[in-house]
């Protein structure tokens, strides 16, 4: 099994979610993060003192999938999340050794 971690632009979440649902992937976990990268942040001014807001709001999606599904899932995310403009984000794939569904005790591929 693999864990796909995607950092995307916040307003792309709905599109990515439905792209994954279309593939039959039923689960994912989402968190609000801040990203730092090539895309530059904006400046906030308070009574003349300027603060650079370097970190931009991003969404992190974590999806655990079977090894067979990885490629499809990655390209579905990549397509849905793409705007072609700087700051679109990254996808990382890493290995999961073991998975468990808490409710049922099912493990590994069955637990996804």
């Amino acid at each position, binding site marked *: 099994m693999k864990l796909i971690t995607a950092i995307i632009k916040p*307003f792309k979440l709905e599109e990515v979610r439905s792209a994954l649902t279309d593939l039959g992937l039923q689960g994912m976990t989402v968190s609000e993060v801040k990203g730092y990268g090539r895309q530059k942040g904006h400046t*906030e001014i308070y009574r003349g003192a300027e603060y650079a*807001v370097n970190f931009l709001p991003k969404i992190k999606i974590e999806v655990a999938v079977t090894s067979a599904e990885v490629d499809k899932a990655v390209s579905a995310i990549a397509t849905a999340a793409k705007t072609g403009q700087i700051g679109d984000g990254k996808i990382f794939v890493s290995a999961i050794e073991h998975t468990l569904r808490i409710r049922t005790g099912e493990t590994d591929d069955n637990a996804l």
Partner: protein
Amino acid sequence: MKTCIRSITSVAALAAAWAMVSMTTALPALAQAAAAAPKMDSGDMAWMLTSTVIVLMMTIPGLALFYGGMVRKKNVLATVMQSFAAACLLSIVWMVVGYSIAFGDGGALNAYFGGFGKMFFAGMTKDGLFAPLLITESLFAVFQMTFAIITPALIAGAVADRMKFSSFLVFITLWLIIVYAPIAHWVWGGGFLGADGIMDFAGGTVVHINSGVAGLVAALVLGRRKGYGTENMAPHNLVYTVMGAAFLWVGWFGFNGGSAGGANDSAAMAILVTQICAAAAALAWMFAEWMTHGKPSVLGIASGAIAGLVVITPAAGFVDPKGALIMGLIGGIVCFIASTGIKRALGYDDSLDVFGIHGVGGFVGAILTGVFAVSWIGGEGKSGLLEGNAAQVWIQLYGTFATIAYCAVATFVILMVVKLFMGLRVDEQTEVEGLDARLHGETVH
């Protein structure tokens, strides 16, 4: 002068009497005072000072919070900024020219327009009264200023999340001068609608129909928000909205009660019917929603309360508590339908329902005033349909349509001119990222 006197005797609401210089019968208590040289009444002054305070509180923080809580988090500061900046800018515009147009003497054109004679409060003395009221003109001018602030500020709700701040400032300035001030003159300042006998105690037409119609026009001209109907645009913090509704509500006692012009029995009855109508409409909306959508929402009950306050505004000095109760129930349900079903059916994006609540509620209130007015409250001749005076309904209809027509056309023209010179809408990037960061350089952390 003739027009003036005709206007008084026919309108005979204190509200409509404000602009008059002398009077003879309609208001016994005041008339008495007027027999001798009228003297300032400290009790009336006290209540009108207080009313001024709380009507200003309706806009800041009331409206700022009411609207601010309903937008998405990325636009909350831009939204409260609109109310706050309106309060600042329109105070000055009112001083410069608005007051003059609304309450000045327009000479030959007085039926339509108060002229420029009172620009910069020209002619105001320190202790001169605003006859026949027993309060000083300075107090009358600042009390009315708070009305001139909230009316354009209300429009912001219709264009939330997408209007350029700079264009908004220019728009409300022109709108106050070209739309609000003349209509205030028509109804309260000695103009033709007052003369024709329209009953509008505290601004059903002048304030609510006016801002509601302008909101609708603006929403149509600007177009829908990006993502409208597909993206989640749920209010980010309804605690703010409830707070805002609360300040609007308590401030409305100054709005309606202060429109009696003093601390008199009319003011007291006005706040009693205001409370009843607001409460009834809030419950009506809540139960209507509960039955149709399964849950009573916080936003629903708050919206209903505001709808009720709008509905009672023209009627506050003319109806009794039972009339107010019925008006509230009707108004709550009608505004609920307008702001939910009808809006969705028609597909326009009046973001925070300025039209559905203020436009529709103002219209319902204006007509029902013509139905429920009773003479033991409003004084002799101030009867509505239920007391057999069917003509009043027609006068109310005529007054509201005059307002709607003029307001819609003028608002449209103003918007087009602003669009031509500076554009109305923020760029897409700003809309996506949020107005707070891009227009004002600030965010809520």
